[in-house]
């Protein structure tokens, strides 16, 4: 029974996956640690970025080759872009390199919180969807922005849990709960802000389809073990959601039945 559960698959943008964890590739102590973390996590999708390559430099090529051997789907991002135009061009360049229509669309609007810009996001998403991209928009938990993104063709929505790299977990769980209610048909992924396995489990318990994280694994003392922990946490939360969780009660309720308890006042039997 439990083995079957673990292998239950789901579909993300047409791709069948066994894990509901999506993992970032930045900030690991070494490529070996990254590769081992990807394997330990069980993830089938990793995010990557594009950066300026120097002539004669081989960093980009080495990372490109490294990614291919990981044998997981690549989700390129437009990290660092601050306008729709920049994000669109970066998305097109990413498609050229990674040969995938998938794009994690980031249009940053605030330096302190690295909050996405809803205006640039919708504009870029519209252009990219028309051009055939499968857009994974990194967004706040704003339902109206989400509705706009759905209207321009996004089938996936990735609200943040908390600001990127803060590790604070779900800052506003009620807002995420409303997301699930409002968008029962869309694929919902919590992206950013996750710091601990319990945060990832909580996101999944809300009925989200997946969780995307990076820093919490990469900067752990033992990234590989932490990657495994998050893989388990995502499964735990998903299975909890699927299994139908108990309602919360104000009053305590004995688990051990009280009928037949010893040493209680005796009844007269004639």
């Amino acid at each position: 029974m439990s083995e079957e559960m673990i292998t239950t698959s789901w579909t993300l943008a047409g791709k069948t996956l066994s894990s509901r964890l999506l993992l970032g590739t930045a900030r690991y102590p070494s490529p070996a640690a990254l590769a081992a973390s990807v394997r330990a996590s069980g993830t089938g999708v990793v995010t990557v970025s594009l950066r300026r390559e120097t002539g004669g430099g081989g960093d980009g090529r080495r990372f490109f080759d490294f990614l291919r051997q990981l044998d997981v789907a690549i989700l390129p991002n437009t990290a660092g872009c601050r306008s729709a135009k920049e994000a669109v061009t970066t998305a097109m360049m990413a498609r050229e390199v990674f040969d995938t229509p998938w794009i994690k669309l980031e249009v940053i609007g605030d330096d302190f919180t690295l909050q996405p810009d809803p205006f640039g996001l919708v504009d870029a998403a519209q252009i990219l969807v028309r051009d055939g991209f499968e857009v994974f928009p990194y967004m706040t938990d704003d339902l109206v922005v989400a509705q706009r993104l759905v209207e321009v063709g996004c089938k996936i929505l990735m609200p943040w849990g908390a600001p990127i790299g803060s590790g604070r977990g779900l800052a506003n769980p009620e807002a995420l709960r409303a997301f699930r209610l409002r968008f029962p048909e869309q694929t919902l992924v919590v992206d950013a802000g996750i710091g601990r396995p319990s945060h990832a489990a909580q996101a999944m318990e809300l009925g989200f389809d997946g969780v995307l994280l990076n820093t919490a694994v990469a900067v752990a003392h033992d990234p590989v073990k932490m990657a495994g922990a998050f893989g388990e946490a995502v499964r735990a939360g998903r299975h909890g959601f699927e299994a139908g969780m108990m309602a919360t009660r104000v009053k305590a309720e004995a688990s051990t039945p009280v009928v037949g308890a010893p040493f209680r006042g005796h009844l007269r039997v004639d």
Partner: protein
Amino acid sequence: MQLIVNGAEIPEVSARNVAELLRELGYVEHAGETPPHLAVAVNRELVRRAEYAAHELSADDEVEVLAPMAGG
């Protein structure tokens, strides 16, 4: 001809198109190579690999040559 490549001004470029530029700057050994890990944009528009040779450069063009890197 001066170009801006990856944000830096390159004062004397002899390449006339993207293919030649990649060779001139050492990204490839022979003009005509199209490394799969590179993507090129000129003036914020993608230049696809098949167009490297055809895409002529003008003075002060802004060229971006990007490659994969770790990302979140």
